[in-house]
């Protein structure tokens, strides 16, 4: 069977069985989820009541970085782990480097890159009060990285690799470091001192954003950033 078409799109017997089973599962789960109490306040009220204590005005950011900041810490760890995992599997960059034969792309990148840095910073800053934050800002930074590679502004080499390593771990180090420091100071992991939560959150978020951006870029690179002759 050719590799790029699952040409065999016919409904074979196993597929029909799988389809029927999935449909049954869907039907059951749909029925059940509709019976769930609809008027339950769940954690909504609690979270909103204590929003003022969290140091930020955006409840999602408050949950992400304060109430359930520990989840986010592990999340940042997942990001780093994904890159380490990829690097351990692929010893060379996967991306296909080809210098573009038109100046338009470079011009575009020159125009857009500063804008993206600005936007990512803006989203981070905004995160405290409105939708936005480290993940979204980081995603924009990651996009910038992809653009960078796509326009062949940067070729993966090992000077860059060292820089990348530091950037990758920055967020997790900041997160764990700050949390441990707070453990020593306040007696509880990641418990921000009263009134200073916002500053701590911003510092952690900034570091995390850089790491997230670098991580997403490295996911795209798909291997240790160095060129192998003939790497695709």
């Amino acid at each position, binding site marked *: 069977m050719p590799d790029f078409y699952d040409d065999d799109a016919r409904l074979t017997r196993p597929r029909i069985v799988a389809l029927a089973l999935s449909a049954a599962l869907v039907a059951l789960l749909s029925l059940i989820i509709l019976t769930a109490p609809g008027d339950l306040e769940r954690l909504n009220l609690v979270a909103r009541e204590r929003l003022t204590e969290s140091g930020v005005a955006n409840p999602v950011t408050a949950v992400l970085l304060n109430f359930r900041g520990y989840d986010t810490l592990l999340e940042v760890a997942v990001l780093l782990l994904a890159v380490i995992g990829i690097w351990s599997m692929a010893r060379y960059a996967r991306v296909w480097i080809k210098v573009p*034969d*038109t100046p*338009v*792309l470079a011009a*575009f990148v020159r*125009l*857009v890159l500063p*804008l993206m840095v600005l*936007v990512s910073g803006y989203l981070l800053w905004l995160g405290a009060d409105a939708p936005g934050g480290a993940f979204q800002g980081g995603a924009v930074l990651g996009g910038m990285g992809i653009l960078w590679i796509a326009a062949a502004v940067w070729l993966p080499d090992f000077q860059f690799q060292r820089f990348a390593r530091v950037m990758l771990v920055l967020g997790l180090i900041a997160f764990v470091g700050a949390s441990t420091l707070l453990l020593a100071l306040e007696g509880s992991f990641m418990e921000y001192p009263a009134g200073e939560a916002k500053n701590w959150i911003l510092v952690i978020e900034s570091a995390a954003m850089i790491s997230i951006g670098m991580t997403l870029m490295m996911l795209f690179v798909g291997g240790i950033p160095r060129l192998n002759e003939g790497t695709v």
Partner: protein
Amino acid sequence: MLLDIAVVILIFAASFFFLAGTVGVLRLPDTFTRLHALTKADNAGLLLIAIAAALKADSWEVIVKLVIIWGLVIIASSTVAHLIGRATLQNGQTPWEKPS
């Protein structure tokens, strides 16, 4: 009230441009012509909607944001259109000509 009417008209016009773009993408015969229809129509449509939103905006911040959004889209789509056009040409496809 007048503002609202203007907004309605703008949105209506924008919808027309979007429709044109979509019809173009669907009906035109080859990549180049479709590219042409899409970029023109959609960017114009988005511009109109952005203007409508700007009319309703409460602060300058929002207007700046709208400008940036529109600017980004237009730069990106023109760059991409350029890249696509080049690539398509290089792939050996020739622009469609009206059959005589």
